[in-house]
């Protein structure tokens, strides 16, 4: 029982981080149709900038607010001056461009912060441990488990009930029609890209107290996020959430029950999904 609960917590907290980065990826794909390889680099940048501002003003919360906003501004610039130029071209241009951005950002991080590792402390209020069945368990991980669904829920409300959310959904469904009814689609695209970037950077900032920072830390998580997005269904909101939880739990329980097969489980799942249900568990447009 205690093992079960611990593994449940382990899986859920990891899944929440995966969710935050996957949701940005999936929104950007859903609306702009862009497969953004640089997404993991924004995640990394979010973590580094959070650390930077946290050290500057000695507050984790300031870091977590300012860091992702700065990355979102960078995302805005990237969309406005780079991505926009290639929307009409072949998809391979997108892949090359976003991959190039990834390489540039990796090197930039190495130049600014050096090649070494960094660790970030969680804020005091979240830094302790609590007792779970005679095991100590970090509060910060429980915080992740709670914050994930909260962010997910507020996003869902935003897309369902606000006017702007509806505009975004309309632009995603039919660009020409949306323009026809007077929606400024190019503005919507820019803001969605910046918003997706912000989510990824927020994921990075939240992950910072939990994993070490090093150049290229985004490359590791991007692969898993892509698996989440494919499993959940490209562009699907619910899919990203369910997919992320699924992968998180699969990895934590896999460690116990699958032995060395554990590392292959996400890929096996990916292959199964691609064969049985290529659109993913949830269809696009929810």
């Amino acid at each position, binding site marked *: 029982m205690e*093992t079960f609960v*611990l*593994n449940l*917590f*382990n*899986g859920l*907290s*990891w899944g929440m*981080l995966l969710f935050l980065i996957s949701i940005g990826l999936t929104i950007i794909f859903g609306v702009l149709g862009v497969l953004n390889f640089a997404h993991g680099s924004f995640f990394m940048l979010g973590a580094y900038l959070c650390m930077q501002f946290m050290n500057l003003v000695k507050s984790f919360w300031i870091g977590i607010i300012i860091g992702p906003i700065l990355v979102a501004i960078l995302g805005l610039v990237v969309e406005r001056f780079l991505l926009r130029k290639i929307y009409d071209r072949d998809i391979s241009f997108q892949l090359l461009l976003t991959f190039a951005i990834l390489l540039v950002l*990796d090197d930039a991080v*190495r130049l600014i912060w*050096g*090649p*070494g*590792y*960094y*660790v970030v*402390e969680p804020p005091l209020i979240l830094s302790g*441990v609590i007792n779970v069945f005679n*095991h*100590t*368990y*970090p509060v*910060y*991980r429980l915080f992740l488990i709670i914050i994930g669904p909260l962010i997910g829920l507020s996003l869902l409300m935003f897309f369902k009930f606000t006017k702007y959310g509806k505009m975004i959904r309309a632009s995603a469904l039919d660009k020409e029609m949306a323009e026809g009814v007077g929606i400024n689609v190019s503005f919507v695209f820019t803001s969605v890209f910046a918003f997706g970037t912000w989510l990824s950077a927020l994921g990075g900032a939240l*992950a910072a107290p*939990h*994993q*070490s920072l*090093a*150049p*290229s*830390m985004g*490359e*590791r*998580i991007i*692969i898993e996020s892509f698996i989440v997005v494919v499993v959940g269904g490209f562009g699907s909101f619910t899919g990203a959430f369910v997919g992320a939880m699924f992968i998180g739990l699969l*990895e*934590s*329980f*896999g*460690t*116990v029950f699958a*032995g*060395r097969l554990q*590392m292959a489980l996400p890929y096996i799942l990916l292959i199964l999904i691609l064969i049985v249900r290529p659109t993913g568990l949830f269809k696009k447009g929810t």
Partner: protein
Amino acid sequence: MSKVRNVLLMTIIFLLSVAVMSFAAKPIKIGYVYIMSGPFSTYGQFAKQGAELAIEEINKNGGILGRPVKGYFEDSTGKPDVALRAIRKLVYQEKVDILIGLDSSGVAKTVVPSIPKMKTPLIITHAATPDVTGKLCNKYVFRISLNLAQNVKAAATLASQMDAKKWTTVGPDYAFGHQSWEYFKKYLKQMKPDVEFFSDSEVAFPPFKTTDFSSYITKIMNSNPDGVFISLWGGNLIDFVRQAKEMGFFNGKYKVLMSLGAATEVLTALGDKMPDGIWVGTRYWFLANNSELNRKFVKSYYDKYGAYPSYNAHGAYAATYAFKKAAEKAGTTNKMAVIKALEGLKIELPAGMVEIRAEDHQAITDAHWGQTFHLKELPLSILAPVKVFDGIGVTRPIEETECRMK
């Protein structure tokens, strides 16, 4: 007409400058191959810093045999095929005089058998698999640093003195992690026959890309061992230590040994989050050797990069100087002569006196283990006390290495 004259003039100037350049001493070329990108690029960057410091010092002091030294750096990305391509490029295109590098045991195992075809000596500075100076050994391949068997033998010696009977492991899921565990089991069993080891399904080998170790930590803690031998390194080790600490892993229930825990980059990143009193090992510890040479190395490294040298920085630095000494001993950079000179070479390095054993080309060098101790004045935990395991004592005798030099 004047156009033709211009072209003619340019050509003459070009030819002249080429001629002048070839009069100047041709640089000696050293090819370095390390992981320069991806999650473990930290190691390549440190190696590059160590190498560049050595080259700078050597060139300031008149080069090697009166010729300046030039370094060529290539990215192995940690993948065997990429590393091999990088090495081919260095040998055939850049025409380097010697190769230095290799971070991963997996890479080394693939690359080493191909080196004789390229007829260029290679000094391995990081990859620790015993096989490259064991059953895969060949005339062209040397290693300047501790191998895993040496390091783990020291670990087993420590473990044998502890009152822990049941041992388990957490290690990276590739050659290094698995071999470390095998050697640990073998040596510890020899030293203390009544120990037990957990079966393969109970130990934990998280994949390289893992950042969340919680499920592995839970698994190890639930299996209730007396001692845990950890061979994780780099970012993996940092993540593991932090997450394990929060989950109560270091509360004193188990004896813990970390085979590469005393890497400066790991200790610096962890700062005061590194639990005190943990036994950690390393290939080079910047405070272990109080020689003038080491003090000078640590100081010039710190002045140049603002950090204490890691074992990988030391490895690249050491190999560059070992090549210098070999070339000077041979009086030439002829590759076969350098190989002969490297065999049995004795050299003082920042780590101490090192001998490259002629029979298997493995460096006989001391292994360092110590208990972590955090000082407020320093950004990283130091080792106090430090135990130095004599090089000869931890090195496998030639008969055990399975090396048949060809």
